[in-house]
């Protein structure tokens, strides 16, 4: 029911992982995540992500593949770091 992701190259917003499918290292049933994206759900591949995400984590996506995972806490912390950086301007 969910189709492979068809998107432009760089999506800047981290997307929430709703479900994990497939098996790590199995190309016939590739490891992938179903993520929430702008009013729809898309599948992204997990072959090259730095850390395999879990449900509830966020991923940054490029060309149909996740390139970076961050947990809710990490996302929160990096947002705080960011706001600090802005505050110190």
């Amino acid at each position, binding site marked *: *029911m*969910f*189709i492979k992701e*068809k*998107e*432009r*190259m760089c*999506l800047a*917003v981290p997307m929430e992982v709703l479900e994990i499918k497939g098996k790590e290292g199995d190309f016939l049933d590739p490891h992938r995540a179903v993520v929430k*994206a*702008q*009013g*729809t*759900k*898309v599948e992204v591949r997990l072959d090259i992500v730095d850390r395999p995400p879990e449900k509830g984590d966020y991923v940054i996506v490029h060309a149909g593949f996740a390139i970076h995972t961050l947990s809710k806490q990490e996302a929160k912390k990096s947002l705080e770091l960011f706001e600090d950086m802005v505050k110190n301007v």
Partner: protein
Amino acid sequence: MKTDKILLDHGSGGLATKNLIEDVFMKRLANPFLSPMEDSAVLELPPGKLAFTTDSFVIDPVFFPGGDIGSLAIHGTVNDLSMQGACPLFLSLGLILEEGLEMAELEKIAQSLAQAAQEAGVTIVTADTKVVGKGQADKIFINTSGIGIIEKGIGEIGIDRASPGDVVIVSGYIGDHGASILLARSGLPFESQILSDSAPLNTLVDDMLKCVPSGVLRLLRDPTRGGVATVLNEIAQASGVDIKIQEEQIPIRGEVQGVCELLGLDPLYLANEGKCIVVVDKDYADSLLSVMRRHKFGKNATIIGHIEEKAAHQPKVLLQTNIGGLRIVPVLTGEPLPRIC
């Protein structure tokens, strides 16, 4: 003899053609002009200037959320006449059918044509059907031409009439049609459906023209192919002015914004089939806006910007962005989206 697909025979001019016209079209579109099936419709027109327009429809997919090629073919031509300040009256209908087209689909389209014409208050007075071999057309192509009358007293409406100080209004949410079609083509499952905004604007325009003195309404334009950005650039060029719009003011549905983010599109360049851009003397902007908002197809009319003196040799369209920056809205370059209407 009923068949479930269009055959070449249906275009031969013989019995099959006659049956096709009667069973599919006359059943739904009959009227005193069309039914005699004369070579030409003979019409008596009310007084006023004659407006005449033509448009061909090759949209893919033929059926889309919010309409189909039939309703679109009526709305498109009705709107082109309305944009000129004309009251649309009579339409011609030319169909090119691909051999193999499902009869059920053609019947559905004929029904849409009839319904849309009735709702818009226009009559299809003459028609023609041709059939080409499989692969020589894509399902169905439609041409509608239309005539309307610009009543006396309606001021001149023209794309070169925008004047510094004038206000730019858009009649509602932009990008719905383009986003709907692209979403349908992409196959992406979306949580909420995006419907094409295909609609006839003649009664809205009628209300608008009646509420302001002649000449105050400078121009009307429907932002179809190429979207709002393309129309604004055309206005800027033709009128020799700059146009400044506010990103914050532009009405876009959240779902359309979402599709654009996902597919890498700018909603300013997406087609609209039930919207118009209005340029009006600033002293009448507010009253025009309230009249528009009372109409079904103008509920979300918004002021999006204004006309300025052109600052440089080339007229340009400027956008004040959500973060307070300023940038140009360029003319569309590169591949526009194919077969959007």
